[in-house]
């Protein structure tokens, strides 16, 4: 479904992504891990069209999407969250989610009334229905993260890119969010998850890709990758044994 071929990205003299290639099949759940600054978010930005590749190709269902504008990529079915939540500050939760519902599939968009109904459905799904008229700026961090997720799925994406949605949450909140992501995955969406919270990667991703300094250094089933010496050294720093979780989708 999604293919990256020799994707490279330079920022001036700095190489952020160096010759990265991989492909993601439909309805896979892929984890993307690596130390800070290894290029994970940059990769998401490249896929969603926020940045242009310096070289290489990105294909979605066989069509090249590198160089395409972000809104078109969204219409093709790619949704994402941002690492630092970016809610539209002067609107309510419901209105925030409605935007994606209106414009997520077409340039023209659908009627606000329809969109608000869809937004309500999404909010019901993620469990934010009781907060729908609150201004986003008045929410807790966990709720804000959930809104970010709700916005991303309001466009009904087939490929969902989650960028550190768990960051800053406590264990209960992480479990809740993981449950929601699981629901999304099981409804047929392909997910790529950037995380530092290993529990989430292990619990949600059947396969994991590891980046370091913009290079792909590992790509395989999650429990194998986690135990790989190179990965452990560069990223985890010490021995970290992973028991293959039966709940991880495979």
């Amino acid at each position, binding site marked *: 479904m999604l293919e990256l071929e020799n994707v490279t990205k330079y920022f001036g003299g700095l190489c952020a992504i160096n010759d990265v290639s991989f492909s993601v099949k439909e309805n896979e759940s892929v984890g993307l891990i690596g130390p800070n600054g290894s290029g994970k978010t940059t990769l998401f930005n490249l896929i969603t069209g926020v940045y242009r590749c310096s070289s290489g190709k990105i294909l979605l269902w066989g069509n090249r999407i590198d160089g395409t504008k972000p809104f078109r990529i*969204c219409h093709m079915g790619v949704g994402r969250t941002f690492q630092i939540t970016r809610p*539209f500050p*002067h609107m309510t939760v*419901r209105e925030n989610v409605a935007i*994606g519902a*209106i*414009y997520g599939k077409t340039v023209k*968009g659908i009627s606000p009334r329809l969109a608000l109904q869809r937004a309500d459905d999404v909010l019901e799904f993620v469990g934010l229905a009781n907060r729908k008229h609150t201004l986003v700026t008045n929410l807790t961090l966990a709720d804000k993260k959930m809104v970010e997720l709700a916005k991303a799925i309001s466009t009904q994406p087939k490929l969902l890119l989650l960028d550190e949605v768990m960051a800053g949450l406590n264990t209960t909140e992480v479990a809740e969010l993981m449950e929601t992501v699981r629901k999304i995955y099981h409804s047929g969406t392909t997910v790529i998850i950037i995380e530092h919270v290993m529990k989430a990667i292990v619990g949600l991703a059947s396969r994991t890709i590891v980046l370091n300094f913009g290079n792909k250094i590992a790509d395989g089933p999650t429990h194998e990758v986690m135990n790989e010496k190179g990965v452990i050294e560069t990223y985890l720093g010490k021995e970290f044994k992973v028991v293959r979780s039966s709940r991880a989708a495979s």
Partner: protein
Amino acid sequence: MQRKDKNKDREPAILDKAGKGLFVAVFIVILFTLLPLTVDRYTLHILILCQTFVVISVCWNLLAMTRQVSLGHAAFFGLGAYTSALLSDRLSTPPWLDIASGGIVASFGAIILGLICLRMATWALAIVTFSFAEALRVISSMIEFTEGAQGISLLPLFEGNPNNKLFSYYLILVIALITAVAVYFVIQSRLAYAFRAIHDDEQAASTLGVNPALFKLLAFTISAFFTGLAGGFYAHYTTHIEPATAFNVHISVEAQLMPLIGGLYTFIGPIIGAFVLTLMTEYLRVSFGQGYMIFYGIILVVTIMFLPEGIIGIYKIVWSKVRRAGLVRGV
């Protein structure tokens, strides 16, 4: 925390709701239609100015909703005015055609400018629009095509008709109403969602499927078109335009001041601001004379520093205090 929870049941309105507003609106329209029949020529003139500025104010506000701040809205006003004047003078076209053409030329200007400025930061656009208006002013005062600094004269509207001022008023009233209705529909529609999303976070909006270029250009074009109509009308009404009046910085300053004091990003705010400011200008011009703009500079400075939401902001503060005191149930 209790208070905040009470608020959660009430949708804060960034998009004005119809309903009770409709009655008020119809009443106001009727008022403005019948009122002029009873007033003297001078007051009628003031009302005409008010309506002209209502158009400019509402348009500037619409553009600002996409985070495109124009410091040179006089450019579109002047383009409309000059198009109208040139057509009337050189080709003797009927006024309605001149005025409409004024709007069209102004929108072309906006499309071109908008395309150029699509990727610019807000401040860059502000500087560009300002320079655009200034450039037009200076150039039109020096080239032959526009008759230089002396300007162009036009035949008065409804010449020979004893009620010509009244008919002129109805003409601008119609233009103002069309503008208000058009903008109202925009604010009530899905466009408002797009505009606001682009205003708050263009990149995030883009990843949600909003095409920023389309909506920014759309806002620019609509804004310029009606402002051009107002300019076209003004040229005919005053029967003479020149660079100093058509592209005057005053117009640009007042264009931003009206929505600012009336209530930025709301529907009724720019309209209120237009009336307040036009009346204030007229009063100041008569009693204070040259240099009255100093008050507008002061208002601008004070508003930016203390009152970002304008009069509506004060209204909101008072209203929420009244509600919290339990005097009025939630709306």
